[in-house]
């Protein structure tokens, strides 16, 4: 069973619907006990980085950290990916999960922000999450902050400079775009995650 973690930041119907479509058993939950028992964890998220504070207060951060220790596959989407970093310049006092060192940053002033729409993946090296997805595939983004390109970046995207579209290390995955809104490419990615 996949736990889609609900921390009251945005609407999770679309994520749930996408998992239903590919035949995966997924529940939307705010209950740390359900999260700890899940085979896989998905942390979606839109809006402000500070909304992730709710995760700590609700006991969800501990539940996620415990599961990650047990090698449970974890997929962060959008802010859910950004939260895997140490911090974000959007809310510098809020601590991320710290899977990766560094901070999320704003887009440079020369481009419009938020970055909204379909942009391309530049796939770099092996990825279990992106298996079968060709480089230059289009996916749907909507965000104002971004994860820089790091060692574990498996796909980068260009908009006011290159940034991480997807990161991956062992059983930990993060995508800045919305697979649930990225047509066939996004559904393939979710299938890959489900079949881990």
């Amino acid at each position: 069973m996949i736990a889609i973690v609900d921390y009251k930041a945005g609407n999770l119907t679309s994520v749930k619907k996408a998992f239903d479509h590919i035949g995966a058993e997924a529940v939307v939950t705010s209950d740390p006990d359900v999260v700890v028992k899940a085979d896989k964890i998905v942390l979606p998220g839109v809006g402000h980085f500070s909304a992730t504070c709710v995760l700590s207060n609700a006991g969800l951060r501990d539940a996620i950290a415990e599961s990650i220790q047990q090698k449970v596959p974890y997929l962060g989407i959008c802010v859910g990916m950004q939260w895997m970093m140490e911090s974000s310049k959007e809310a510098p006092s809020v601590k991320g999960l710290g899977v990766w060192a560094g901070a999320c940053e704003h887009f440079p002033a020369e481009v419009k922000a938020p970055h909204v729409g379909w942009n391309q993946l530049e796939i770099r090296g092996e990825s279990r999450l992106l298996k079968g997805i060709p480089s230059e595939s289009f996916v749907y983004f909507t965000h104002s902050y971004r994860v820089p390109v790091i060692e574990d970046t498996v796909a980068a995207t260009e908009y006011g400079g290159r940034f991480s579209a997807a990161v991956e290390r062992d059983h930990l995955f993060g995508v800045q775009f919305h697979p649930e809104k990225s047509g066939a490419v996004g559904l393939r990615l979710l299938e890959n995650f489900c079949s881990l």
Partner: protein
Amino acid sequence: MLTKRIIACLDVTAGRVVKGIQFLNLRDAGDPAELAAAHSAAGADEVVLLDISATHENRETLVDTVRRAARELFIPFTVGGGIRTLQNAGEIFDAGADKVSINSAAIADPTLITQIANRFGSQAAIVAVDAKRSNGSGKFEVFTHGGRKSSGLDAVEWAKEAEKRGAGEILLTSMDRDGTGIGFDCELTAAVGDAVRIPVIASGGAGGAQHFVEVFGDGHADAALAASIFHFGLSSFSDLKQQLQTAGFPVRFPC
């Protein structure tokens, strides 16, 4: 590269698509869910569904229509029309929409924009601006209630205000061009687009591919929306995108 978005719009009333499709071939039959799926499969980058009747009695029908249309739609899906409260918006999101578009209600109570942005994220809060040229002044005035009421607001100033209050995108319709097929109002689109940092979706007047080239070029639009030309089959998404690519605009393929 970030592409220019082509958005298919479905105008619905009482659970049926109404605008410009009555005489379409039987395959569509005016069903919003079927048309949404067909447009997505054909290469639309997003789908917008606008409830043009937006009466109280139709709320349940609309929620049901949204749920049916959203079920098999895996591209961004916006719903507008008659959303007056945070609770109305919540029902639409629960039914499967990704963004809501608010118009008259945002002008009546601009805090509604912030309420929706705070709860569902700015990316989910679209403010629709219906604008008309004011005679001789070079300005554009905002109208509400389906274009029936003048608000006295200036379109550029109102768009800036909406952005400040948390809107994630502006859906900008030229009332002068709506339904004419003679092209988007590029002056209006550029005036608003240059004044805000959030994406502007141009609407009203699309009649052919050249109009999209103009609005992405001269109009500085980030996205463009049309209804009739797609329903009537006057323009296919792939032909349109080919022409945009030839004109130097990045678009999403395959479609």
